[in-house]
Structures are given as C-alpha cells and as structure tokens.
C-alpha cells in the first residue's frame, strides 16, 4: 500500500514541475499596459520551486511513516492487549505480539489463543488506519505544498535563490548522514553494552578466562554456566591475526618492493591490478576456500608431521586471511615506497650500493611510517574480518598459542550469539554488543594511530 506511494512520488514531482513552469510562463509575457514583464528567475527555477514544495512534504511523511509507523502500531496493539484483560501470567503482551508478527498466531494450538486472535485483529485494524492516515497526509501534503508554492509565485518571487537554498540544505543533510551513522553505531553499541555490563561486571568480562555464554536452562546442564570472561576470545583473535600478519606482512612488503623496484613497467601494469583482485574477492569466498580446501590440506599435512590438528584449525583461517590481506599491505607499502624521492635512491646507487642494499638501508627506512601505517591498517582489517573465521575457525573458546588448535574470535562470537536470536534481554545476546563495542574501539584506535603515524612521522624531503 505505502510502497505504491513511493512510486507515486516521482509523478507528483513531475506534476509540480509542470505546474510551476506553466505558471511561470503565464506570469511572464506582457501586463495590461503592454509592458514586458521580466521574471526574476528562469521558468525552470519556478518549476523546481514548485517541484520542491510538492514533493518534499509527502517525502517527509513517507520517511517518517517508514521509520515510526511500526513503532506506533506495535505500541497501540500492546496498549490494547494490556487493556483487554485477556493476558495470562505466562503470556506477556510482547510474546503475543511476536507470535502475531512471525505469523505463528494463525497456526493452531498453543499460539491461537483468544489474545492472539484479538491482537491480530487490533494489528490489522491499526495497520489499516495507519495506511489510510499516511495516504491522506501524503496527498494533503503534496497538494498543500503545491498550492502554497503557486500562491507564492508572483513576479517578485526570487525562485532561483529559494531553490538554491533548498538544494544547499539538502546537500548539507546528506553529508550529515555519515556523522549520524557513526553516532548511531556508538550510541547503540554503548547502550546495549551498558545493559550487558549491568549484568556482568566489566572486570569479569575483560579479565575472566572462562567463556561459556549459554545460560543454563536446567541446573544440571553441562558447559552452560553463563560465564563471560572474554580473554580466550581476545587471545584467539590475536592468534589468528598474528598468523595472518606473519604471512601478509613479509609477503606484502616484498611484493611491494618487487613492484616498486624490480618489476618492469609492463609487468607492474598487470601485476598490480591482479594483486588487488585478491582484495576484491568477497571474504565469503575466501572463507569457503579455507573451510573446504585449505582446512583438509592443513589437517593432512599436520597429521603427516605427527601433530594433532583440530578440524577447524586457527592455521587454515589464518592462512586464508593472510592471503586475503596481502594487497592491503602491498598497495599501501608500494605507495609509500614510491613517495620516497628518486634522488635518495640514485644517490645510494651512485655510491656503489647494490639495489637490495639501497632498498633495505635507504628506501624502506625512508618509507617506514607509510609501511607501519599499512601494517596497522592490515591488522585492523584482520581483527574485524568475519566470514573467513566464521567458516574456517571454530567456536571453542580455547586459550592457546598452538596454531593447529581450534580457537574462536570476537567476530565469530558476535555472529553466533546474535544470529537466529530474537530476544535482546539476556546477557548472552547483550554480550555480543559488548564484544562489538570492544571491536569498534580497537579498530578505531588502530586506524587513528595508523593515520597519525603516516602524518606525523613522514619524512619531508622537499
């Protein structure tokens, strides 16, 4: 219903444009005495003015209804349910509402009690009223806006200035979206994490070594003590990140050196984009490769060496992730190496140093801030990487430095704690937000430090 209104919106805008332009054309021309009337702006500007007034009010109504419509409807249904007296002690209004939303209320048995039928009816009615209201306001807003624009359209109206002001405000609002996103992230993470830390003390979370987030339903359940010590998760994240960096660090840097100093121009022209393809391949593909191809290989090799290898080893995930982030290290390092002035390299070569001595003793030290920045960004990328570890690393929160063991990471835990769960009041689900907040701040710090390192410690040669 409301979906159709989104399609009507462009028609309204076109109608506003047309109406504005025809009005402007009618205004111009000659007055009663035969004097030529010159409008302040072009007819197009009047048209745009009318377009803005006829399209913006209904657009706002649609946005507001998309954001707040279901909150209103749900609130109304809950209020009606509470007032109806149909609820029992074991059946809260939130339960009924959830059943109604997921369509369970229409099935027979437990979920088709009188409160469910009642709630379904109230919900249907409330949605009907909402749709009617939104549609009404939509057209009233459009019509009213157009009427207002037309009534303001005289020869004195500075249409272009008005339109440009509207455009500027719209542009400004668009650039605020990015800020709002950050605020949304920080506020929602903080809010949910604060609820978690009200249940579990921060000291236990950051220092505890027991991670077992399932809260026991029965007293005799094994392994579900509801312990929230996140140290094993951080350790697992660090282990996988270390493996990934042990691969991508040296290989990325050496690849950058090859590209910057040894490769011919034609080799560089195809190698660089092909290398960057690695970063363009979706991480779910690397994850599948790690799980289906690398994992069994690692296991086979490890067992041939007489080692005990978990079926989901940290090594397989770390390997795939290491390859995946090679381009992050190599392309930023390549940029940093290329930014070092040629004169330094030529001076060193002229003194008789070989190319590799020049690279190791002159070029890399000169480009070091950029290279360190590249490494830090790669670490931040590795910590935040999700799909590879979800598919190739395990769920077991082991605290170990053995790369053949199964470990778990922050991102894996966030995903497994939240996927498939619809209730957000248990410590288990809230723990995901605490982990998310930690992840957000660690990656933010790494990015900021990388930025500062690159800016502050860059050698200036000019």
């Amino acid at each position, binding site marked *: 219903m409301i*979906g159709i209104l989104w399609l009507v919106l462009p028609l309204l805008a076109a109608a506003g444009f047309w109406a504005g332009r025809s009005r402007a054309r009618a205004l111009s021309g000659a007055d009663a005495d035969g004097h030529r009337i010159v409008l302040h702006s072009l007819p197009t500007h009047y048209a745009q003015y009318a377009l803005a007034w006829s399209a913006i009010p209904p657009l706002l109504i649609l946005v507001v209804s998309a*954001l707040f419509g*279901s*909150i209103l409807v749900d609130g109304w249904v809950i209020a009606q349910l509470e007032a109806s007296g149909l609820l029992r002690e074991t059946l809260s209004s939130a339960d009924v509402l959830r059943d109604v939303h997921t369509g369970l209320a229409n099935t027979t048995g437990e979920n088709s009690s009188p409160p469910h039928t009642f709630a379904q009816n109230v919900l249907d009615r409330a949605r009907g009223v909402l749709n009617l209201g939104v549609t009404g306001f939509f057209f009233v807003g459009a019509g009213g806006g157009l009427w207002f624009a037309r009534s303001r359209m005289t020869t004195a109206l500075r249409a272009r200035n008005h339109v440009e002001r509207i455009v*500027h405000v*719209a*542009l400004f609002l*668009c*650039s605020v*979206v*990015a800020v709002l*996103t*950050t605020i*949304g*992230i920080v506020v929602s*993470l903080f*809010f*949910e994490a604060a609820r978690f830390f009200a249940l579990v003390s921060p000291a236990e979370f950051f220092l505890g070594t027991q991670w077992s987030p399932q809260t026991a339903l029965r007293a005799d359940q094994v392994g579900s003590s509801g312990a929230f010590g996140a140290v094993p998760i951080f350790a697992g994240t660090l282990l996988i990140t270390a493996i990934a960096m042990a691969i991508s660090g040296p*290989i*990325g840097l*050496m*690849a950058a050196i*090859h590209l910057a100093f*040894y490769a011919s121009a034609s080799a560089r022209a195809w*190698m660089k984009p*092909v*290398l960057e393809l*690695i970063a*363009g*391949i*979706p991480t*779910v*593909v690397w*994850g*599948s*490769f790690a799980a*289906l191809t690398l994992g069994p290989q690692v296991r086979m090799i490890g067992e041939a060496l007489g080692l005990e290898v978990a079926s989901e080893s940290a090594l397989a995930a770390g390997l795939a992730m290491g*390859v995946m982030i090679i381009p992050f290290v*190599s392309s930023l390092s390549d940029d940093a190496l290329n930014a070092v002035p040629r004169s330094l390299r030529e001076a060193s070569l002229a003194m008789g140093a*070989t*190319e*590799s*001595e020049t*690279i190791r003793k002159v070029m890399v030290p000169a480009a070091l801030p950029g290279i360190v920045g590249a490494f830090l960004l790669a670490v931040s990328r590795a910590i*935040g990487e*999700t*799909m590879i570890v979800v*598919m190739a690393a395990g769920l077991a929160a082991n605290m170990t430095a053995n790369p053949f063991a199964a470990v778990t990471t922050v*991102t894996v835990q*966030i*995903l497994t704690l*939240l*996927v498939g769960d619809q209730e*957000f009041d248990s410590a288990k689900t809230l723990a*995901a*937000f605490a982990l998310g907040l930690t*992840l957000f701040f660690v*990656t*933010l710090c790494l*990015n900021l430090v990388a930025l500062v390192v690159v800016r502050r410690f860059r050698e200036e040669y000019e």
Partner: protein
Amino acid sequence: MSSPTPDAPLAADGRLRRRYRQERVFRAFALAAIGFALSALAGLLVSISYQSLSVITQSSVELDVVLDPDALDPLGDGSAASLAAANYAKPVRSALRALFPEVRKRRERKALVRLLSDGAEYDLRALMEASPELIGSTQTFVFPLSDDVDLFLKGSIDSEVDEADRKISDRQIGWVETLDAQGRISQPWNWRFLFAGDSREPELAGLQGAIRGSMLTLLITFLLSFPIGVCAAVYLEEFAPKNRFTDVVEVNINNLAAVPSIIFGLLGLAVFLNIFGMPRSAPLVGGVVLALMTLPTIIIAGRAALSAVPPSIREAALGVGASPTQAVFHHVLPQAVPGILTGTIIGMARSLGETAPLLMIGMVAFIADLPTGVDDPSTVLPVQIFLWNDAPERAFVARTSGAIVVLLGFLIAMNAAAVWVRRRFEMRS
C-alpha cells in the same frame, strides 16, 4: 672494478661477490612473494572452478510414464482442483519399478525409488498442469536423479569404497548401470541451478532466490547511497565552509570506511530492527545497512573526482555569471561523473559480496520461495554460499563452488562496467 693484480684477488672481490649474491637472493625473495600471492589467487580460482564443474549438468533418467487418470485426475474432471489433489509420485515410481520387475522386496523397492530425486514428482506436476490433455496416455519424460546417484555418475563416489561408507549401495549401483546400459541416463544442462529457489535437496537447490534477493538489496543500496553520497561529496568539496564541523565530518568519513562490516550489522540489528521494527531478513533493511557501509566509498571517490576537475571550468562558469550552484551542477559535476560512477560501481561490487552484516539482520534463514518485493524475506548470493558451505550433503560442495562462480561472474561484470565507463568518458574528453 677489476683488481690491479689479477693473480692476487683483493678482499673486496670476495665481499663484492657476497653482496651480489645477497642482491640475487633478495631479488628472488621479492619475486617469490609476488609469485606466492598470485599463485594463491590462481589456486583459489582453479580449485573453485574445478569443483563447480559437476554442477553444470544434472544426471537424469528417461522414463516411460503411464499417466494413470486414477492417480493424476482423482476428481475425474481435469480441473485445476483435481490436478492439485493428484498423487504425482505414484506414476513416476511405477514407471521406474516397471523397468525392474524383479525387485519385489519392500525395502529394495524403496531403495530403487530413492534413485530418483524428489524433484521428479514436481516436474511431473508442472508438466501435467501445462498440458492436462496428456492424462490417460503413456509419455516419455526425463526426470532428475538424486544427488548421490549424480555424484556416483560423475565419479565423485568410488564404488571400491566399503559399501557402508558410501551413500549409494551396491544394489543401487547395479540398477544405475542397467539404466545406463539401456541408454536411459543423460546429462542435460542443470538449468534448475540458475532458475530455481533454494531447497534442502542438493539436486533441486537453485540460486534464483539469492540472485533476486541480491538484486533487490543492491537496488535499495544504490537508490540510497548514490544520491546521498554524491550530494555529500558535492557539499563537502564545493560548498562546505572550512570549520571544525567540516573537519569532524571528514575524519568521520575516513574512519567509517575502515569500520569492520559486522559493526554495521550490529547497527542494523539494534536500530533498524529493534528500534524501528523493520522486517527481518528483508532486502530493504539489508540495502539500508549496505548503503550506510558503501556511503564513505562513494563520498571519497566523489570528492576525488570533483577535486580533479580543473578550477578553470568553475571560474569560467562564474565569470559568465552563473551562480555557484549553477557552476557546480551545470559544469563541474558533469565533468566528475565518470570518476563518481567508477567509485559507485566499485562500492556496489563490494556490497554485493558483503555477508556478515546481512547475517546479523537475519538474512540467514532458509527461504525456498522467490522474493517478490523489498520487504519479503530473502537471502543473497554470498549468504547462500555461506549456507551451502555449511550444509552436510556432499553434493552441496559443488553447489557452493557453483554459487561462487556465479557471484564472481557478477563481480567481474560490474568491474568491467567500471572500466568501460572510465574508458568511454576518457575518450570523449
């Protein structure tokens, strides 16, 4: 740099040889590093393409089905209601059993029927609904075989392995070989893989639902992130005053580009699902989350493209009396379009491959129906890969690789489009 007396080499000569050796070793390491990265990429692509080969065709069997009116038209009037109530499994099974009259034991008859895919009866139903006039005659149709028979015929199941360790028994292998000897088994193109929805049965599972879900999600992402991103880039590059606020926005955009994608999933879950009560698993919410994620990419690309436009163009427009807004929208922005489009396409390609945030907002459910709108529950290509990767049936390994090939195909097409856009506009200017 030869030594003055050839018969008495200087200490420097030995040192020089060592230094040259170091040079060669270093050089070899640099080449090996890039060789490793490129061969890892090649290994990935080759292993995935190889694994996906077996999904191209689907083993099928040709059966002479007696279209028994009692089973297919229970009401006897050929109406839609009658066809809906029909038993389609029976004629297909009878057709297969008729080929092996010697199989009598109940258990063996069941094992025989298990050679066929469950899809056989769906296929028969579709055929009958399309042409009900055939009921009563005997027709020859081609039906899909089950995933295990398919794996066996493609050589993925070794008949040498102990019978208890494989999914297909010696008896079943014998039947399959008999059917093959009769020339009834064929390998037609597996169109179902591209045009059917998801299924629990590997041989029936298709990507259509995921492809549509991806398209709907990407549409929402584009509709939101492109206009907002371009407008933000124009504002920041052309109109924003140099003050504290602009600095904050700038730092913020750069940081947002490096925030892990799963954090955006948490945002979507906490804000769009829990506060605003938007539908779970819907392309609408997925698109909004991905739009927020893509926004920094588009803004950064847009600003770079705008700042690359020569200032002379702006000044010339202002000089002949255009307002600043007119100068930007009529003269500067059109020049920046190729750069903005290239950045946008690359951002879209990245969000097409994004998985984690979509899992967080519930696009992980098993959905067999094809989505028809942006608020229908659906899945997307990368999530489908994730789901099939975890599926226990062995035939899903090939499906996973096949889905990856399809996803990579879309990504290659998008990147090629980006290159094409850049080339085309470069030639014009």
